[in-house]
């Protein structure tokens, strides 16, 4: 009988530690003396499987947008549109314009997926909200992926609006806009994975916010401006930022004969970063939830 064995073990431990503070009489019906009625271990409740629970988390997170995120989505879009307008005064049409439009579109993804998700997980962790998920039989990956997917979805309208507006503003073709259907989820995966990992790894919520903000600022400063004007060191930093590959994948498609292989490579980098960062975030979640 597992119960009995467990008790004996702990007795032994108690003796060694000599810390037992409960006199026997305060345990009415005392511990080991009670005959165990032969009821074995209770049946475990069902565990939530990955996909259904991912879908449930996704749906719940998406509905949060209605309550809390709409104003922030406006800000994200407005900011990107504003940057496109500002750059219109600096940059002519052509290759540089392509970087600006692609950069400001992907910036929406960085703002929401990286910055907001990092803040969200940072706050959830600090306030003890992770306990809720940690006491449910749900795989860590479902919580992280569900939230990341929802935040990536939040970015869709803003990214599209910015892209269309930018194309019109700079006179770029709208024909290959469909590439955003690949860019948003893949850049979204990479950036929300980073955001989730930052939020869950940061020891304090302020630090999570800071990391998210810094990441977004980097995406803004390094992603929007055309790379060939930059000094070598900045270009290196730009190459280290996953959002860059989303920007470049999109920027490449404006030409008359896009280099689809290069586009695929860029998207592949996004996907790879996404897989790694989401895996890191899922591990971080497990650690953060069970302290």
């Amino acid at each position: 009988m597992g119960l009995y064995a467990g008790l004996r073990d702990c007795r032994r431990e108690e003796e060694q530690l000599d810390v037992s503070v409960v006199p026997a009489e305060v345990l009415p019906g005392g511990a080991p003396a009670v005959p165990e009625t032969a009821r074995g271990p209770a049946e475990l409740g069902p565990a939530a499987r990955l996909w259904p629970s991912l879908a449930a988390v996704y749906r719940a997170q998406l509905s949060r947008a209605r309550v809390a995120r709409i104003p922030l989505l406006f800000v994200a879009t407005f900011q990107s549109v504003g940057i496109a307008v500002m750059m219109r005064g600096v940059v002519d049409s052509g290759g540089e314009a392509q970087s600006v439009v692609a950069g400001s579109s992907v910036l929406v993804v960085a703002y929401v997926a990286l910055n907001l998700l990092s803040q969200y997980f940072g706050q959830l962790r600090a306030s003890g909200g992770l306990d809720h998920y940690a006491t449910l039989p749900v795989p860590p990956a479902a919580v992280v992926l569900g939230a990341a997917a929802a935040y990536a979805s939040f970015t869709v309208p803003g990214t599209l609006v910015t892209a269309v507006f930018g194309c019109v503003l700079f006179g770029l073709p709208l024909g290959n806009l469909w590439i955003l259907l690949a860019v948003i989820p893949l850049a979204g995966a990479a950036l929300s994975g980073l955001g989730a990992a930052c939020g869950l790894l940061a020891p304090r919520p302020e630090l999570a916010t800071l990391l998210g903000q810094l990441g977004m600022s980097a995406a803004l400063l390094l992603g929007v401006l055309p790379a060939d004007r930059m000094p070598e060191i900045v270009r290196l930093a730009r190459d280290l930022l996953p959002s860059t590959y989303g920007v470049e994948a999109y920027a490449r498609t404006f030409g008359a004969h896009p280099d689809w292989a290069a586009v695929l490579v860029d998207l592949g980098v996004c996907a790879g970063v996404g897989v790694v960062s989401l895996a890191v975030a899922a591990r971080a979640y497990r650690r953060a939830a069970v302290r």
Partner: protein
Amino acid sequence: MRGLNKTYPAVKGRRGAPGTPEVRATDGVELDVRRGEVFGLLGPNGAGKSTLVRQLTGLLRPDTGSVEILGHDIVRHPERAARLLAYLGQESSALDELTVSLAAETTGRLRGLDVRRARAERDAVLAELGLTPIAGRALKKLSGGQRRLACFAAALVGERPLLVLDEPTTGMDPVARRAVWAAVDRRRAEHGTTVLLVTHNVIEAETVLDRVAVIDQGRVIACDTPAGLKERVAGEVRVELVWRDRAPLQVPEVAALRERAVESGRRWTLRLAPEEARAAVATVTGGAAFAALDDFTLATPSLEDVYLALGGAARQGLVKA
């Protein structure tokens, strides 16, 4: 009901943050909770109740000791805790921006229910707790008590044999409290659900608990039925004196009482044997002392008295409401 089903022996935790001295939040706690019981953990803030609960729910690994729930070793398999128990923590931040209905449904689905069953159980629980009229509102927009009730509803969706409730009725009005205890009773009667309740509300502890463990500084200082605990101090009567302005210390009997009183502003609380209490009342209701007296009460012991008599460190830690 002798069927011992859960044992929480020797849970010992040690939590120290750098820069602050090591705190032993739970210190050799040893408890047995029987199936179908409403078992309470009573103690002041910082007594280690929540740490204990976090260890039981698999959220916190004890340094030493073992936790067994319904035959499962939770220290070795913390992930099983989530499949055995439903936990209502003190924080609602994970659900705050959801509607009541979605919070309950999502929690049910994350407890492994399929969509259809999660919705059916959600509807049943919301109706049972009287939450249907506010099902479409976000938790954030609700009052504290309603929000708490909504979180409680989420904890009930996806039936579990053990409910771990950390101060479930905080901020609730009497109607909501009654709904909570009715729901708990129903589950106990129908499914033999065991309830572990954390509280520092003495009155609630006296009325709803089958047994209660009094926790102080990470230790169990007593564990019995509320009535059994009260019997230990049955020989005592609590006398409370409230002075108008200040105590008339020029009266020698009053000066003598002062040594045994716990003072808080104008209020003195004394624990006395019945005949001593009679003498004290006679003193303060006559002569000079009576002129200075604003109010006095005589009461039989409550769990709070038990707590204090057992040497609880915090003198004013428990809520009486």
